[in-house]
């Protein structure tokens, strides 16, 4: 069973239905015990960094996430679920994250060097390519250069660049997913990225 952590942020149904579509059982829950008992855990999330962190804390789920990750079980973060793993985010003031990964979460600069072909608007919203830097089992069968759906205004800057699994170009090159031990976390939304995205959900469910 895959537990999808519900802390009141965003569309969780698509994550659950995505797993079911590729044949994995998944349930949406905010019950700490159920999360701790699950084989695998997913931390999704859209919205503002501070709100999400506050909600996690308020529901007592921040420690649950730390415990799950410390236990070595496969863990996947999506979008804000990636950003929250880092030490701090600067959205609406500087806020502490879970601090499980070293690094920061920063905003795209207001003035990215655009031209007539590409104006860099913020949020970075839509389909963009990933470049695979270090292929984790989660990206099994995923095409290098494939398109994924993004919607975000902030991106992660890991202290240790070697944890970057993929990078993406948007006026600058940013880390679009990380892989470290039992953690895989992506800025893009596998559950909204059609075939390519479902491959990631399938691969995550198959990890031993």
């Amino acid at each position, binding site marked *: 069973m895959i537990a999808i952590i519900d802390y009141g942020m*965003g569309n969780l149904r698509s994550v659950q239905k995505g797993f079911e579509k590729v044949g994995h059982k998944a349930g949406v829950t905010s019950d700490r015990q159920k999360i701790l008992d699950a084989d695998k855990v997913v931390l999704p999330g859209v919205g*503002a960094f501070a709100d999400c962190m506050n909600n996690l804390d308020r529901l007592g789920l921040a420690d649950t996430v730390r415990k799950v990750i410390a236990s070595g079980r496969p863990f996947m973060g999506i979008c804000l679920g990636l950003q929250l793993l880092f030490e701090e985010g600067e959205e609406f003031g500087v806020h502490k994250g879970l601090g499980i990964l070293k690094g920061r979460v920063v905003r795209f600069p207001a003035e990215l060097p655009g031209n007539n072909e590409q104006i860099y608007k*913020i949020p970075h*919203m839509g389909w963009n390519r990933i470049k695979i830097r270090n292929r984790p089992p989660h990206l099994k069968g995923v095409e290098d250069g494939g398109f994924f759906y993004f919607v975000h205004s902030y991106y992660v800057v890991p202290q240790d660049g070697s944890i970057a699994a993929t990078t993406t170009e948007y006026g600058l090159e940013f880390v679009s997913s990380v892989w470290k031990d039992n953690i895989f976390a992506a800025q893009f939304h596998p559950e909204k990225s059609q075939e390519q995205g479902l491959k990631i959900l399938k691969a995550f469910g198959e990890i031993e």
Partner: protein
Amino acid sequence: MLARRIIPCLDVKDGRVVKGVSFVNLRDAGDPVEIAKAYDAQGADELTFLDITASHEKRGIIIDVVKRTSEQVFMPLTVGGGIKSIDDIRALLKAGCDKVSINTSAVYDPRFIKAAAERFGSQCIVVAIDAKRTVPVPDAGRARQITEVSEKLPWVQDDEFRSLFFQGVDKNGLHWEVFTHGGRQPKYIDAVAWAVKMEELGAGEILLTSMDQDGQKTGYDIELTRAVSDAVSIPVIASGGVGNLDHIYEGLTEGRADAALAASIFHYKEYTIKEAKEYLKERGVPVRL
């Protein structure tokens, strides 16, 4: 490089797609879920449902459509039409939609956009603007209009919003005004200034429809699209008037839109989404193929 998006839009009434959709091989061409699957297979980048169900009591129907769609289709889904409250938005997001598109409720209470963005994040709040070219009235008439409109829109009396009325005219002496109720009710608000205000209040995207061009099949209002795209820093979806693939190309290049929304050219199978993207790609527009 970020791909420009192609977004088919379906008008849904009482749970059924109302404008003709002529896909072959569909078991039920009036079922939004079946059509969503067909567009998914064609490589649509997102999907928009516009709920035109008249009665608020029947809102449960669109929720059910969203639920069923999100079990089958894994791409971003936007729902617009009749969204009046934070609870309406929550119910839609919970059912599996990613963004909501808000039009009339924003005009009646701009601060609703702020409240919605603060609660759910800007990324899921799309503000839909229906704009129409009009001849501005002289200053004295303007004051009268503001008084008239303030009966229904008390917020227009607030200093914060005064600048939204009549900012200037184009070279033909026209400007774009915000309309509601399918282009029937003028609100005297300057559409470009309105878009800027909506961004300031937390909108994450603008869905811009030209009411002059809507249904004409002679192309987007490129000047309008360009004016709004240049004025805001959030993505703009061009809408209203697509009759051929060159219109989409114009909207994404001269109009500087980030995404193109179209209904009939896809529904009546004049072109597939894939054909549209191939056309754009040949002309150097980045698309996802």
